[in-house]
């Protein structure tokens, strides 16, 4: 039977227009659903893959305190991935399907996690700059038009502030140390600054989906707006820390009331997005191995549950 979608679409537009939320069982345009699946799944995958670069340092954290903090932070990222997968599933995709799309490279995750963590200072830079950029992106998403996504973002944002502060505090501690430690912080910040700016996505001119996403209330600000906000927030933090950003064009613009800054290397960005970053292969291989190695646990747990049910019925 062919359903007349015109009145449904009118109701949908009215809900969005009134700033109300769309909930899972509401009618929604197929393109809205697909856009959300792509965006929320990509967000979920980023949280899950994002555990790897920092997880790399858990066994080598310099003290028990740092190790406990790092474990808690990485565990939070796992939780963020789970909140977001559960939001994505309300759009009608199964968890297995999402995992498969990630492992087969059909869905993306944030390009930032394809960079390696070469020194312990990178744990600090990630907390400060990568989680900092994520916060800039995520705070407006708490008001996104799709209910389950917005609610997941609220939970996540509550937890992110710890992530950023522990990273910044780690770097502050190193900056109070030896010359060698200070150099290590600066070198780490140099490597992470540009990739952090790229986390906001391509320039507005090269982001064809932004306009529609903003019309639907999925996105609230353009990539360039958020990037600018992040730069403006970060510069005074860098000054307080005593590090510089590797951008000769970075300077205060009195007229705009904002910092001017240079152009990220967008060729590098697209290379990483296309799978040619330093760690793409390794990240996906690791995720696939974890999934495959866990198969027997998932199967055994199901078999155990089935047996318990059978015993109960006897």
């Amino acid at each position, binding site marked *: 039977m062919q359903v007349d979608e015109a009145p449904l679409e009118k109701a949908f537009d009215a809900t969005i227009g009134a700033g109300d939320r769309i*909930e899972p*069982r*509401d*009618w929604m345009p197929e393109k809205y659903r697909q856009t959300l699946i792509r965006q929320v799944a990509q967000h979920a995958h980023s949280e899950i893959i994002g555990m790897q670069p920092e997880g790399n340092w858990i066994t080598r954290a310099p003290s028990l305190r740092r190790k406990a903090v790092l474990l*808690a932070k990485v*565990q*939070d990222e796992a*939780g963020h991935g*789970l*909140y977001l997968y*559960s*939001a994505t*599933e309300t759009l009608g995709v*199964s*968890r*297995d399907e999402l*995992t*498969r799309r990630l*492992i087969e490279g059909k869905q993306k995750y944030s390009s930032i996690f394809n960079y390696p963590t070469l020194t312990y200072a990178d744990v600090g830079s990630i907390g400060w700059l990568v989680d900092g950029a994520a916060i800039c992106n995520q705070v407006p998403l708490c008001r996104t038009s799709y209910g*389950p996504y917005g*609610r*997941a973002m609220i*939970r996540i944002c509550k*937890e992110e502030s710890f992530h950023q502060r522990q990273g910044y505090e780690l770097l502050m501690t190193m900056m109070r140390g030896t010359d060698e430690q200070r150099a290590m912080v600066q070198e780490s910040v140099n490597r992470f600054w540009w990739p952090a700016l790229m986390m906001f996505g391509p320039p507005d001119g090269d982001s064809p989906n932004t306009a529609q996403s903003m019309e639907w209330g999925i996105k609230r600000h353009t990539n360039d707006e958020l990037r600018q906000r992040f730069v403006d927030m970060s510069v005074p933090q860098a000054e307080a820390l005593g590090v510089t950003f590797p951008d000769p064009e970075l300077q205060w613009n009195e007229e705009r009331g904002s910092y001017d800054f240079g152009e990220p290397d967008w060729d590098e960005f697209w290379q990483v997005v296309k799978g040619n970053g330093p760690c793409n292969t390794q990240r996906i291989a690791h995720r*696939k191995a974890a*999934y*495959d190695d866990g*198969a027997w646990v*998932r*199967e055994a*747990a*199901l078999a*155990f*549950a089935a047996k*318990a049910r059978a015993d109960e019925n006897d």
Partner: protein
Amino acid sequence: MTENQAEWPLYEVFIRSKRGLNHVHVGSLHAPDAELALRHARDVYTRRNEGVSIWVVPSADITASSPQEKDPLFAPSGDKVYRHPTFYDIPSNVPHM
């Protein structure tokens, strides 16, 4: 990856954040059975003392009103304004009301 192995069933999670408040829906998760759903819910949804009590319910067991019929379903309460306190005019010199 094994294609057709069954996925763990989905559970909805409800949390009472402190005594005196209702359980509130916080999200969902997959688990092989109810007991493990509770344990997973503790790890996923209460890492910072967000709850004093957790309920988990198989998502498949929830009966929901359909969004399409929301108008007829909720219409009966729409014309019963006398259920609200503001329906009644009480002079302002009457205290405690």
